[in-house]
């Protein structure tokens, strides 16, 4: 019996230790919690003190967790990331950078959980504007850091605004893209189309000419629903005669029942009813949709310029040209584009090595444009890259796209970057619905308005 009771005691002791361990961790987390409460003030003081200590003891071992969305070794982004990180670790033997690579959707989910439990990694990935808003309190402002080494001036004018709030910049984008129309010159020729369309009526006529030859006019992966919205927003950018429609709605100056919005819905519907998209588009995911174009089974793809590299290296690469989205009913300026400011690197306000992390990110962002240029991944860079693209071996398509960036006069950003997530979801499913049934444009407008009113 004695033996038995000692056993019980031992088990109880072990359990108690485990519990103690748990509570210890718990209290540590609590400390972190209070830290975030004063993220603003702490960030300032931390930066100061850390900088001081770091300068004194630069051989202090530092580990930086770097969450990123470049998991695929075949992509230039992956190569760029690893080249810069390796170089930095070589130059700073005391700094160890731990990469945590995963795909975009996983990262979005993971960061949500981490933000809720205050365990955001030192460097993480966030998205611009409306999608950045909820995370502000867990991120450190980077104002002091971007002033160092002239980093701020490497970014395209106005781009950092999408990552700023109340005069603070919270994240640095990995790119900035515009929406263009890629087209297959061979298929256009087969349908007897001689020049890319410049008006929506010409565009519709081309769609019908392609259909008449049994060619799918536009490849669209509408299962992922943002794709259709991205196209729709480009039409809206034209019918509204310029950018800012959603901003006006948010500011209460316009409603979704505005004629510009209804005109855009009507135009979108005309496109769908003219069978502009492949059959069953709403069950085709984004990648498959892209492949329909890249294997020469569709004549056009209306997408962000981030696709340039993939289109270039696909089977149809040499046959592909690019044009600006046409005017709609005589409205809009083709030099205004749907803009897609990229995902961006942000630093956790809770980072144990805030200053070291900022120093690294500063180096990383300074090196990034150079590496991107070398890796022929300069199309869609958020930073100004100068150099002889032709001599560096960039394709004609890439050069044409880069030319469009130069003529770019601003534009709008995606719906879900401007509106609250719940409104964006209602919008996405409303647009997706247009692909499967004919709708009354006024009803679509009403649907948007009621979602907006319910989630203001």
């Amino acid at each position: 019996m004695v033996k038995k009771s000692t056993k019980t005691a031992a088990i109880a002791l072990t359990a108690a230790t485990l519990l103690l361990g748990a509570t210890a961790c718990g209290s540590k987390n609590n400390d972190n919690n209070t830290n975030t409460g004063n993220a603003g003030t702490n960030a300032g003081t931390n930066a100061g003190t850390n900088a001081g200590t770091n300068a004194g003891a630069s051989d202090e071992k530092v580990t930086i967790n770097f969450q990123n969305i470049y998991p695929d070794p075949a992509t230039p982004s992956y190569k760029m990331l690893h080249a810069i990180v390796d170089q930095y670790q070589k130059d700073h033997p005391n700094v160890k950078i731990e990469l945590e690579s995963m795909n975009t959707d996983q990262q979005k989910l993971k960061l949500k959980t981490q933000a809720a439990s205050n365990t955001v990694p030192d460097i993480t990935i966030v998205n611009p504007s409306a999608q950045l808003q909820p995370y502000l309190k867990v991120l450190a402002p980077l104002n002091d850091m971007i002033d160092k080494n002239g980093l701020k001036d490497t970014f395209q004018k106005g781009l950092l605004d999408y990552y700023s709030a109340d005069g603070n910049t919270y994240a640095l984008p990995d790119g900035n893209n515009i929406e263009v129309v890629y087209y297959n010159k061979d298929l256009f020729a087969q349908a007897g189309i001689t020049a890319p369309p410049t008006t929506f009526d010409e565009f519709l006529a081309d769609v019908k000419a392609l259909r008449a030859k049994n060619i799918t006019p536009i490849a669209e992966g509408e299962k992922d629903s943002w794709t259709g919205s991205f196209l729709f927003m480009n039409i809206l950018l034209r019918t509204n005669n310029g950018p800012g429609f959603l901003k006006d709605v948010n500011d209460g100056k316009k409603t979704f029942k505005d004629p510009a919005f209804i005109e855009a819905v009507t135009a979108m519907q005309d496109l769908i009813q003219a069978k502009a998209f492949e059959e069953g588009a709403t069950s085709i995911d984004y990648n498959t949709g892209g492949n329909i174009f890249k294997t020469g089974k569709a004549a056009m793809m209306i997408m962000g310029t981030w696709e340039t590299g993939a289109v270039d290296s696909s089977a149809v690469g040499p046959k592909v040209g690019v044009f600006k989205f046409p005017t709609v009913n005589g409205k809009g300026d083709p030099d205004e584009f749907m803009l897609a400011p990229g995902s961006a690197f942000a630093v956790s306000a809770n980072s144990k090595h805030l200053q070291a992390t900022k120093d690294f990110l500063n180096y990383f962002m300074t090196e990034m444009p150079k590496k991107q240029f070398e890796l022929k991944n300069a199309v869609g860079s958020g930073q100004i890259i100068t150099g002889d693209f032709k001599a560096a071996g960039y394709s004609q398509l890439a050069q044409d796209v880069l030319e469009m960036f130069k003529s770019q006069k601003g534009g709008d950003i995606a719906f879900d970057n401007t509106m609250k997530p719940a409104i964006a979801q209602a919008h996405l499913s409303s647009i997706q619905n247009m692909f499967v049934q004919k709708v009354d444009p006024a009803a679509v407008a009403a649907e948007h308005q009621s979602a907006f009113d319910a989630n203001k």
Partner: protein
Amino acid sequence: MNVLKVPARTIAVFVLPCLLIYIGLVFVPIIVSVYDSTLNWDGINTAKHIGIDNFKTMFAHDANFWPAVRHTLMYAVFSMLEIPICLFVAALMNRYVKKANTLVSIYFVPVILSTVIIGQLWKTVYNPAEMGGMLNGILNSIGLDSWTRSWLTEPKIAMYCLYVVSLWQYFGYHLLIQFTGVQNIPQEVYEAAKIDGAEGFKSDWYITYPMAVPIFKISIVLAFIGSLQSFDLVWVMTGGGPAHATDTIATLMYTSSFSSNQYGYGSAIATFLVVMCLVVTVIINAVFKKVEAKYS
């Protein structure tokens, strides 16, 4: 327990860790999610208590909620309707097929495939003909061109296409359960019945089916709860689209929580799902208690 001659205290100590883990991983999350369902919360920032407003929205204002419930219940009904067929096939196999085990194993293959693979496979079956869809290809080749359609993107039929895949996927699973049940019925009973003049379908009706009721019940409960939670297949094949036409409760819960950032509302849907599971399980048990009492 007394057979082991171990004091209850010791048993308690050994059971405790498991029990704690179970409570921590099952009951605590359920309670937390019930609590969360009273919040207006984006999952990151400070939450606001709004009482039962989420439930009001869910029951009265969300145009996508009741269709999702309907889709889910239909899912359950179809899955449960499959089980009598499984039992029937199992009884036939038990009587007429010599090496029935091989056949059962073959039927079981879809169950061990990952749902993602099954989803992709059936997507290529349902695809439009121009994308190489097999079903449409067959219809075209036998002259039924007018029957071809884009199966997964027509709101009215997309859901039924998903039911079919699910039935195909789980047929082998329930067949295996029923077959095992049928095999376990003692042979003597049949012999006795034979003497009394009951053979073939008659013995099935009076012996096999009544004695398979307990196993039948297991399949029904499994099919029902499995259908209520149906998510993966729908997610892979249609993502709940087009425009919520194939949403189930679980996919609606997912999009509300993670795409619309309405954690509180998502939790309200989760709470509804838990309650529904519990209620229906209780009902099924009560019904079968009566059925079993009748036959034993």
